[in-house]
């Protein structure tokens, strides 16, 4: 078993009286594809935001390769090698695809190297034909790949994907999954995917954590999770397990 790349321990986040995350602890290991699932409002996106620094947790700690990164600003966390994509794509609307990806590439490169990185990432994400299109003129499927490309241009070692498969048709989804699989195998990028599309979770993830009402209710392999009575109950309600 490989070493943990990210450890979340007893993370708590409240919004007023709503407890969005309650003592969440989990561990993502170097090189794996990890998945977080759970019903709507379970706290998945909040968990991501607290890891990458868009929100600050009320309690608990986030460790990246053993170092405490709790509450650091997003650009510092990006510099360390963690970034995430948004549930609803938020590409820079007034930029071309190439420019948007360029912003990410500046994180590690200057001068000519920037273009090389941009080209490489556009090729991986199959976006070369869209290069000069403005982000605001694009459809959902390529836009999701723009988000991915922009994140990849920063050369993350851990990439968090928030419902990146939502709204894609089966062939787009298959293509997207293929890209992710390649990133994991060839670039050795550790992936953490939050997802509702079970086809994607079951097809990619090696380990799964289930969140419900801000708490971890189950953890295991896809096989274990799909037969876990507590998980079925969380998704379908009590009495669904016969």
């Amino acid at each position, binding site marked *: 078993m490989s070493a943990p790349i990210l450890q979340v321990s007893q993370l708590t986040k409240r919004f007023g009286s709503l407890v969005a995350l309650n003592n969440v602890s989990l561990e993502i290991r170097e090189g794996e594809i990890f998945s977080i699932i759970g019903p709507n409002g379970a706290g998945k996106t909040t968990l991501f935001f607290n890891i990458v620094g868009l929100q600050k947790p009320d309690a608990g700690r986030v460790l990246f390769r053993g170092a405490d990164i709790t509450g650091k600003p997003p650009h510092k966390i990006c510099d360390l090698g963690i*970034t995430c994509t948004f549930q609803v794509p938020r590409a820079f609307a007034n930029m071309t695809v190439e420019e948007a990806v360029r912003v990410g590439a500046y994180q590690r490169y200057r001068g000519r190297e920037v273009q090389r990185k941009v080209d490489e990432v556009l090729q991986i994400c199959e976006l070369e034909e869209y290069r000069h299109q403005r982000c605001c003129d694009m459809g959902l499927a390529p836009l999701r790949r723009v988000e991915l490309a922009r*994140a990849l241009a920063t050369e993350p070692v851990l990439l968090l994907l928030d419902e990146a498969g939502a709204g894609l048709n089966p062939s787009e989804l298959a293509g997207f999954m293929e890209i992710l699989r390649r990133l994991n195998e060839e670039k050795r990028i550790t992936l953490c995917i939050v997802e509702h599309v079970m086809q994607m979770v079951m097809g990619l993830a090696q380990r799964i954590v289930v969140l419900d009402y801000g708490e971890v209710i189950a953890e295991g392999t896809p096989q274990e999770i799909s037969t876990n009575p507590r998980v079925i109950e969380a998704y379908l309600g009590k009495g669904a397990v016969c």
Partner: protein
Amino acid sequence: MTDTLLQNLINGALTGCIYALIALGLSLIFGVMNVVNFAHGDFVMLSMYLTFWIGLWAGVDAVFTPLLTFPALFLIGLLAYYALINRTLRQRYVTQIAVTVGLMTFLRALTQLIWKAQPRALPYSLIQGNIQIGPYTILASRLVSAAASVLAILGVYFFLSRTWAGRAIRAASDDLDAASLVGVPYRQTYALAFGLGSALTAIAGGLLMTFQQVDPTMGVRFGLLSWCVLAMAGLGSIPGLLISGIIVGAAEAVGMSLWDPRARSLIVYLLFILVLWLRPRGLFGRK
């Protein structure tokens, strides 16, 4: 009659290019950090006084003072950002307005204290004389100022579209969270935008001093005028800002020549209200 009108239109349009440059600075600040900087016009006024002062004591011509005042205003902008604006970013709008209005009043009082309330002007400028085109006479300093403003605007355009810092500013103005996730440090980007936005007033101030005088109450006029130019153009279009500036300058001139010199602002704001009423996002604004 038509000749006088056209003559005034040309003069107004040329001055309008400087308005556009001032509004560009405001647009950088507002577009990136959503801060309404009421002190922006007073930065212009301060630049004009600095130009006057440098011209008087060091004998540097107003055309060249931006070489000194540009970095000075950039630093003043940084100082204002870190000392004041940075602390109000997470506050309510009212707090931000109070702070920038406070800065505005402070700058005005400061210039009154240092340079007294009377108008000041530089005795001469390198660019002298008139250029005769057909029946029209154009003040050389006005023409040079307009050309320099357009050049400065082009410079900012290239900075924003070609350099990494410029792209960072645009990314942050589009979506701050997304930008910070791909490594754009937001405080530094904000500081840069505020510094640059303020520094642009140094160019405008120097150019204005080649044919105009300055007094401490001028800030408000430039502040409101640049807001007017920006709101009429809408956010996000630099060529639109230039056109909007020219329209405002021309409207002022037409108001003065057809109606009454005292009506110059009246026409501008009537036009402003009309544009916002018919097209709230501005003439060239993005959706």
